[in-house]
């Protein structure tokens, strides 16, 4: 007993020495750029209606402080515990997703109050992303030998349930993230290419069927069409893309200067502090600023992959790979839609966009990466 306890304390002490400062620096750097961009995007319209121009940025700063605590919390316990409780976490996240959807769920004040415990509304889809990563990592790490086609479809079903639930919300963006997590983790787990192809085919059939029974909402089709064939859709749907591109393009090599973006100040870009926050960086800090932002993501993802490589067990590897897939895809889809090479889906830019839930959960993910990294020798 005493011996075992002593060993635990020693290992914790050793673990703290193996924290990854670059990983933390990248996440914090992105969050700071986010604060600057949120202020630039909102201060004018807030003061125009007589509100505190720092209203949004102050809220985001509060979230950031909370997020740093969440990061420390996520790094503090031994991540292998997560493997034990992955099932419970996964099922709980599904229950939350269902509760939020049903009228009973929204009328049950207790659940919502729990969400508001930290002073904000927690989006269950963000929780579900981490929960799915943990669940898939736990399942895949238990597979002995090569992945069979049954394994592939079983894990796909695990991802499919939350993906469908958020799709019904409707939140197409989060569904895509779930799919990306699944594919990324299957690739790392060594699923055969033809199984993945078969999975893709099945998904395509299901999606087409979804169109047929009307699961896909009008505006989602509109947005998709706006991307595929700009000439075919209304002014409104085109407006977002066009304005975002003008904002980013007019930034040029070095940007027009902080708080000087005319596109930003005149409110030309809709949802600019959330989904289109990248346009602020693009307009006001130019190509240089945009590349700096991408470099921070590059740094973050490099460190994430490194964690996956260095992990002492497959669970840690899959966990890190899943997190890397999630962050990479969100970054790519968001920046992609800002610059006009991806369709418009409501995916926030991780660490940068305004919003408490995504900031907290992304920092929690970084905390888990640190967790795996810190305990790679024990």
């Amino acid at each position, binding site marked *: 007993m005493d011996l075992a306890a002593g060993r635990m304390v020693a290992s914790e002490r050793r673990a703290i020495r193996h924290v990854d400062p670059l990983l933390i620096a990248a996440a914090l750097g992105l969050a700071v750029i986010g604060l600057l961009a949120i202020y630039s995007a909102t201060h004018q319209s807030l003061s125009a209606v007589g509100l505190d121009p720092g209203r949004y940025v102050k809220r985001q700063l509060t979230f950031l402080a909370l997020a740093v605590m969440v990061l420390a919390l996520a790094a503090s316990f031994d991540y292998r515990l997560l493997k034990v409780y992955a099932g419970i976490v996964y099922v709980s996240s599904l229950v939350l997703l269902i509760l939020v959807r049903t009228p009973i769920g929204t009328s049950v004040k207790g659940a919502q109050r729990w969400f508001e415990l930290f002073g904000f509304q927690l989006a269950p889809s963000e929780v579900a992303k981490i929960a799915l990563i943990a669940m898939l990592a736990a399942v895949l790490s238990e597979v002995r030998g090569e992945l069979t086609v049954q394994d592939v479809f079983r894990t796909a079903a695990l991802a499919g349930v939350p993906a469908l639930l958020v799709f019904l919300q409707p939140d197409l963006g989060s569904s895509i993230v779930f799919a990306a997590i699944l594919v*990324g983790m299957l*690739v*790392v*787990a*060594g699923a055969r290419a033809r199984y993945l192809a078969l999975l893709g085919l099945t998904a395509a059939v299901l999606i087409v069927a979804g169109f047929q029974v009307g699961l896909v909402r009008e505006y989602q089709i509109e947005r998709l069409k706006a991307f595929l064939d700009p000439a075919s859709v209304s*002014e409104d749907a085109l*407006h977002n893309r066009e*304005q975002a*591109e*003008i*904002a*980013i*393009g*007019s*930034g*040029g*090599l070095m940007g027009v200067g902080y708080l000087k973006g*005319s*596109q930003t100040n*005149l*409110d*030309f870009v809709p949802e600019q502090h959330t989904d289109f926050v990248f346009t602020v960086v*693009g*307009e006001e800090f*130019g*190509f240089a600023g*945009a*590349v700096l932002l*991408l470099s921070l*993501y*590059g740094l973050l*993802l*490099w460190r994430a*992959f490194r964690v*996956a*490589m*260095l*992990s*002492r*067990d*497959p669970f840690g*590897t899959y966990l890190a*790979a899943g997190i*890397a*897939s999630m962050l*990479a895809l969100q*970054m*790519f889809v968001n*920046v*992609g839609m800002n*610059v*006009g*090479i991806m369709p418009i889906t409501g995916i926030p830019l991780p660490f940068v966009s305004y919003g408490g839930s995504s900031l907290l959960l992304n920092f929690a993910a970084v905390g888990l990466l640190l967790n795996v990294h810190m305990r790679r020798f024990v």
Partner: protein
Amino acid sequence: MTDPRAGLRLKVLAALVVVMFAALTTRLWFLQVLAAEQFRSQANDNAVRVVEVPAPRGVIRDINGTQLVNNKLRLVLTVNREELGDDAERVLMKLSELLDIPAEELGARLDDALKRYYIFTPVPLVVGVSKNVALYVKEHSKDLPGVDVLELPVRDYPLGSVGAHVLGYLGQISKEKLKDPGFAGYKPGDLVGISGVEGVYEHDLAGTPGLVKYRVNSLGQNLGEIGELQPQPGDDVVLTIDADTQELAENSLRAGIMHARSVYDSSSNASLQANAGAAVVLDPVTGAIQAMASFPSFDPSLFTRSMSEREYKRRFGASHSSPLLNRAIAGQYPPGSTYKPFVAASALQRDIVTTSRYYPCPGSWTAPYNTSDPEATQYIFDNWTTANLGSMNIATALAKSCDTIFYPMGYRYWDLFYVNPDEEAHGVISHEPLQRDLAYFGFGSPTRVDLPYEDGGRVPDAEWKRTTHEAYPDSFPEGQWFPGDFILMTIGQGDTLVTPLQLATAYGALEDDGKVCVPHVLDHVESSDATVVRRYQPNCRRSVHIDPKYLRYIRDGLKGTVSTPGATATAAFSGFPFSEVSVAGKTGTAQVPPKQDYSWFAAMTDANGEKHVVVVLVEQGGHGATTAAPIARNIIEGLYGLPLTQFTDIAGTD
């Protein structure tokens, strides 16, 4: 890591991510470096123009729902003086040709007699131009700088000038009002109600303008709407005015005045001038004004455009009897004998006279003087007729308007006025119960009607006479209070002034057992979806402090005015069906030297509980029975659906 092959597969995934970065960076390079120039100019072209969408102004309706004022889309030719610049003369010549209006007139209209337009706001020069004019202006816009034709909602008056004084008109907001916190949110150039109901209920009628945000490029071309805020239409105002009664009152007043102008006036040895007048019809129980006429009237639609100084003077000048003046509330006149019922009420209440006694009515009355002093001045006050009418009670004295019965009452108030040394020591300055009683009836202060520019009339007292003399010694050479001041007050002369609405309110109190109602024109305000926003709460809380039995006595006496032989208005009401409609009234002939006499008539009518008070005044209309009484009769006949009597010459009485 347990599975070495996982390392390879991670590298595959990492490579995928690298491809993502490459794709994004390439795209960014294209957008921000290669195509930056093009996007910069697009961004410069991006500008927002916010256009205000005016809120539809509320409609004004009468009590039966008839629209008195609404909005109509009209083609309005506007000229912006700033943009006109040096081209003014040439452009005005061109417009003169186009519109067939002399260029000088157009130039004068640009200046606007009322100075309602700011230099930077377009002046509405002509309202209701033809489509052809609009087309021409649009096609020759380069040739006509600053000129525009816009389809604008313009105030429209379906009944023409009916109720013009009550309704009022709009104009651009004044600089003073812009500073007023009550007009927060208004901008220079905004139209606001200037007078009448339009002015008083501006905030109900105005609504809240909406906004449309357009994206415009550097050439100012509209590139599409980005946002919109719907305007909130103004609320509708429903008045207690009855359009039929209003029209009746205006027509009767006009017809009576026209007839009076053919009547010979013996005292001035000329035809009656009858230059102006007013008529009020109200509900004595609630104070609701059913009609309010003022002659001469005006066409309120003229105020939808600018006006030259000359046109303004021609239409609204003092030499044309100032038609914009609402004489019912802003005209102050001595009430003459129409005042007597209120003096009688005070005298009865204060036991100066009694209902049981009979009083002599000689042709003249001499004020008491020191008979032992042969040098003493004798002040002699004449009755309206030299004949001795014999003795009569107070009721008959009212019906026959006997001045010589009222003069002694005034002298009694003079007796009461004196203060004995004991009281003086206690700070009592003087006793003026008559003035206090008259003030209870509402004389001497505004009625607080919901219309602007109301005057309060005047109930003179010793203090007023002294201070006014001190302030204006030339106009008021005498500062001391004399018995004569009381004596003349009993017959509504001297320094006494009332407005027709004040008199109507006082007769309303007489009719309604002493309850004084605040007169009003608002019935309720309703939103554009016809729900009632606010209802006017009648305010009849004030009382005259006179025993109702005396008020009833006076009312009964006044019935004699129109029906008993020898009373002042019997001739004017000959043949009137009193069995159907009960009428109690009082004539008044006010002396306003050097002008001809002003003609008054006040009536209280009742048929099966439908009560009205009707007050008519005609400036320089001669005797009350000659001009005002027949007009009042006409109005009463119309109110109760009786055939209207033709105006004929009626011999002058009081």
